[in-house]
């Protein structure tokens, strides 16, 4: 329940956790960075929120706001539906909402990777940072959201350094790179040869470059695609017919072609190893069916890993990450409590002021009904009672240590005394 009066934290979001049926709505809502700026301007322009930050990733669009207007969720949903040309009922059905401390908790879960599709993934932390940056540029953050996002990012960093939740790779490409790194050590000076310039090969080549490999070569049966991929990743293309010469020079060979038969036979690998004078070689087979003949693994100093190995590791790593959840959650809650504590302090003061104002208004209304010469006396009497009555509850409200309980109590006081009723 949101009513006007006090500024409240809120979250209206659409995420991959929603029903499968609403996937198309979510996809239509998804925002680019440019659109985020526009959306922030609109939200504030129409006075729906005082502060706003939008977290937009492939898997989620989440609007965080501080609002003191009436029915902010309805107004936000209407705004989004009008902008995207969608039915407001559909937009609302596909959405989820959070308020107050729960909105903050959701953001902290997102930033720490606890709410991610791939548990503990690291990209989302950058995306949360990016959301704050865009909002700052748009001038749509003030004290509360700025602080909330900075605390969430800090929580995300702590979880990543103090737990192993982000340490075990989940994609076959990064697992393959991890294995290669355990053979060769520093991969920066090693040569990686990618066979096949299709999606799989391109994905691996990109990841290898991102991981710091400086020398990536691409070979493909049609040379144009090899050249295009090589140009895109800053590598070099190798003509397919030069493979016998290129193999011995590669430390890591990645099979990612659509060939129905292996493109590297045991004889090819043996010839390459002779050329390398026995220095180790790593074959990574990402192709289905296989690109690297299975018996290559039997050659001395040749390590070979196939898709089934890598997928086994990915499964194992998912379990390893899950085991880190309790520790990650306790760090997350610790940081959240710190933020809510701060927020709670922020809310008690206006609540106390509102309550005093409400009592003063009641007192004045009653005083107006008695004789003017008696008013001063009665005013002093009424003030004494009001101040005695308020003293203990206010002291308890201020001294509450549990931040989320404090928020709840502030809310209870506002509700019981109807402080959010427009004057």
């Amino acid at each position: 329940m949101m009513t006007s009066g006090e500024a409240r934290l809120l979250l209206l979001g659409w995420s991959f956790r929603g029903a499968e049926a609403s996937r198309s709505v979510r996809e239509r809502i998804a925002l680019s960075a440019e659109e985020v700026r526009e959306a922030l301007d609109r939200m504030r322009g129409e006075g729906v929120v005082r502060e706003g930050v939008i977290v937009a990733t492939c898997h989620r669009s989440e609007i965080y706001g501080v609002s003191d207007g009436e029915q902010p969720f309805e107004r936000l949903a209407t705004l989004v539906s009008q902008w995207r040309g969608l039915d407001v009922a559909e937009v609302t059905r596909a959405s989820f909402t959070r308020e107050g401390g729960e909105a903050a908790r959701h953001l902290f879960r997102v930033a720490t990777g606890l709410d991610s599709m791939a548990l503990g993934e690291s990209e989302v932390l950058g995306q949360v940072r990016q959301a704050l940056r865009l909002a700052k540029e748009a001038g749509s953050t003030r004290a509360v959201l700025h602080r909330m996002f900075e605390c969430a990012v800090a929580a995300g960093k702590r979880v990543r350094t103090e737990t192993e939740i982000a340490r075990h790779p989940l994609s076959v490409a990064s697992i393959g790179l991890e294995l290669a790194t355990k053979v060769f050590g520093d991969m920066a000076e090693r040569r990686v040869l990618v066979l096949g310039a299709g999606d799989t090969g391109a994905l691996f080549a990109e990841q290898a470059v991102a991981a710091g490999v400086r020398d990536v070569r691409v070979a493909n049966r049609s040379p144009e695609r090899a050249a295009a991929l090589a140009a895109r990743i800053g590598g070099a293309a190798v003509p397919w017919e030069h493979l016998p010469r290129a193999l011995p020079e590669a430390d890591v060979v990645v099979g990612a072609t659509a060939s129905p038969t292996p493109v590297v036979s045991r004889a090819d690998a043996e010839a390459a190893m002779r050329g390398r004078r026995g220095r180790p070689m790593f074959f990574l087979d990402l192709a289905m069916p296989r690109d690297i003949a299975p018996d290559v693994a039997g050659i001395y100093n040749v390590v070979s890993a196939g898709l089934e190995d890598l997928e086994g590791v990915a499964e194992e790593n998912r379990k390893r990450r899950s085991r880190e959840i309790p520790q990650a959650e306790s760090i997350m809650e610790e940081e959240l409590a710190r933020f809510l504590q701060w927020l709670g302090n922020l809310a008690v003061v206006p609540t106390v002021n509102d309550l005093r104002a409400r009592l003063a208004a009641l007192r004045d209304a009653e005083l107006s009904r008695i004789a003017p010469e008696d008013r001063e006396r009665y005013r002093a009497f009424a003030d004494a009672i009001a101040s005695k009555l308020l003293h203990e509850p206010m002291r308890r409200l201020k001294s509450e240590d549990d931040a989320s309980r404090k928020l709840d109590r502030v809310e209870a006081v506002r509700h019981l005394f109807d402080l959010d009723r427009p004057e």
Partner: protein
Amino acid sequence: MGSHLLGWLAVALYTGAEALAIVSLMRPRALFARAVPIAIAAGLALHFADLMRRAHELSSVPYRTLGGSVSFFGWMLGIAYLVLFFRHREQAMGPFLIPFIVLATGIGLVLPDAASLPREGLHGSVFALHVTLAILAYAAFTLSFVLSMLYLVQNRQIRRARTGLLFARLPALDVIGRLNRTSVTIGVATLVLSLGLGLFWAERVWPSLSDPKIAWAAITLLVYGFLLWMDRRGWAGPRVAVLSIFGFGVVLFSYTVVNLYLSRAHSFR
């Protein structure tokens, strides 16, 4: 013999370092990781004082007795650990190397220091250098043994795509291989020097050069020399690791059976 209080304190410090090393292998904590070399260094200082006290009591080098020599060997291993840590920033080796330090130091304290009669010629700088270098060589070969075991473990993990704790913590095969090559090279070089000095010195004090220890030192050199040779000719990898483990067997035999039962000149009697 007098009390080995300092020596036992050193053993306690080494044991503490081992516990910290295991803990930081399981859950990396910067504080623990930094405490390991500090504990080892403190242990080495006390250990050194204990060796000095032995030397004083024996009126000779501390490795005049079997206990002293094993203890000195443990001390050298501790130095090797510090070199690995500070020069190569290598921490994962700690839990596997430190037990050898604890073991050697402890055995060195327990073995009876047979109060033998001072034998002619068992003093002088040539003799001292000969023994020091020999023990340094044994320490280097022990390090190589530990590295080779870790190499084989890591190699197995990679080949089976087992990416557990050891996989994550142990260094890359290339790194272990290079450290191994360095320690075998140091071992071979110091053993050659030690053998040379030993021969030079023995020629002057022994009637004939017919000690079995000389033959076993030559066999040890042959094994490790072959290892280094093949390492450059395509064997760098698991085969070199297996060869080093075999070489360590030869070293152990030469240090125990040969010293105590076969060689008269190296029997500590």
